[in-house]
């Protein structure tokens, strides 16, 4: 070998200074891969239930109506009273009385198109657009009973409201699952790093004898674990995404469940997992290494 080519390899890179330790590195890679795989599903669950919640929420917004039946002499006054009440009701974004033509259109399927409207005491219908939080239906009923006795609140689609809450809870559970997966990964990598440090006590001793600072020694370990975690998580994420993509497509009927999967740009979210795993590994290994190094004197 020529002197120059040998010299180029004479300074070992920091992570080669620590001998490759088989099982701790493999454990880190495997854990990261498995955890990333699981995290992809937790993410898919979270995003899918988020979509479900949003869609149901949107459907809920136009859910409620108020029907006012009263003698012709009172109907105008009661309609005005109902609109006034709705204006001061929290949770009501908008309220509008339907025109006679709109009501006739609604009734036409039932009563035929040639209805002599003038001959019938048609009820008035007020359509309510809710805010996302919704209104207090019981409170509204009580006020209506007091001020507009002919008014009946019809909120038959409100049964979906608990479903929206459930979907939102599911989204939160997905996020909690991701956090737990992260914590479990950190714990496993911490253990692996501790084992690696313990197995390399003699190497650490030599590094110290030649003037290595704790931070430098820690870095030598941290780099290796960070790289392993990143590669493992990248593999796990790819496998997870492939598995999600391979889920049977949901047809219109199954769409009730919206299908567990990613939609559109949501496919980019899992790509966050490998860097995130690397970050978790970096933080966990660094903390473990500095702690262990303080212990080993």
């Amino acid at each position: 070998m020529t002197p120059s080519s040998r010299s180029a390899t004479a300074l070992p890179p920091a992570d080669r200074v620590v001998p490759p330790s088989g099982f701790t590195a493999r454990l880190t890679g495997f854990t990261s891969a498995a955890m990333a795989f699981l995290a992809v599903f937790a993410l898919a669950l979270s995003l899918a239930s988020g979509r479900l919640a949003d869609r149901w929420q949107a459907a809920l917004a136009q859910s409620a109506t108020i029907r006012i039946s009263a003698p012709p002499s009172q109907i105008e006054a009661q309609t005005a009273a109902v609109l006034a009440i709705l204006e001061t009701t929290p949770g009501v974004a908008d309220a509008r009385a339907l025109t006679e033509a709109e009501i006739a259109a609604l009734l036409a399927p039932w009563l035929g198109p040639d209805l002599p409207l003038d001959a019938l005491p048609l009820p008035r219908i007020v359509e309510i657009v809710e805010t996302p939080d919704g209104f207090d239906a019981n409170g509204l009923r009580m006020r209506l009973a007091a001020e507009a006795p002919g008014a009946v609140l019809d909120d038959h689609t409100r049964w979906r409201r608990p479903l929206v809450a459930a979907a939102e809870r599911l989204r939160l559970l997905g996020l909690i699952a991701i956090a737990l997966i992260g914590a479990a990964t950190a714990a496993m990598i911490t253990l692996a790093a501790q084992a690696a440090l313990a197995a390399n006590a003699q190497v650490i001793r030599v590094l110290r004898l030649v003037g290595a600072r704790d931070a430098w020694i820690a870095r030598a370990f941290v780099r290796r674990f960070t790289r392993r975690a990143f590669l493992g998580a990248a593999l796990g994420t790819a496998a997870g995404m492939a598995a999600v993509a391979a889920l049977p497509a949901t047809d219109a009927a199954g769409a009730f469940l919206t299908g567990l999967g990613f939609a559109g740009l949501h496919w980019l979210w899992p790509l966050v997992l490998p860097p995130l795993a690397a970050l978790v590994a970096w933080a966990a290994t660094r903390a473990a290494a500095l702690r262990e190094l303080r212990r080993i004197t």
Partner: protein
Amino acid sequence: MIELQKVAHSYGGGELFADVTLALSPGGFFFLTGPSGAGKTTLLKLLYGELSPSAGQVRLFGTPLARMSRDDIAFARRRIGVVHQDCQFLDHLSLAENVALPLTVAGATTAEADADLDELLAWVGLDTRADALPPALSGGERQRAALARAVIMAPDVILADEPTGNLDWDMSLRLLTLLVELNRMGKTILIATHDLALIRAAKSQITARVLRIAGRRLQTAGAEL
């Protein structure tokens, strides 16, 4: 540079030695002798801060060891080159990489290391063995490599523990010549050795102080040398 004041050390049992006072002055050349097990290696470990004394004070470059942080000790060790009795190499790195290790951990760049390393390996006669792994080296090769590693940071002080333990007489003299050369460059040298012939050979070239651990005390050796 390095001072021991009324230092004692024990490994938990009785004291190995006590009341040791020693100042390694700049440019000095010291020998440390004493029977096997007297505590020569232990005394060296105190001098570079691997051990803390059970009594008394150690000062590295003016700072009491007890008041130094771990980082302070790391930086001080870069100014103290040590040839360990058992060499202390990393067996998975090549000889050249081991010699360059102090530069690596100090964050030196490859370019900085380049010239130093080639020159140094040639100086200790190991330029052809640069890629060998430590377990494949002979005892003498190991000790010369250890000396190369000890001096690569251009330290102010060099502590050598039995550096000629595995060498034949010719090689011992060569190594001594290297250390004398370093001393003439202004380095402080301390050699722990059993080898009285080596001490005599050194005294014919330079003025050396000979210290001796005996009866749990450090004494200046007399005219028998």
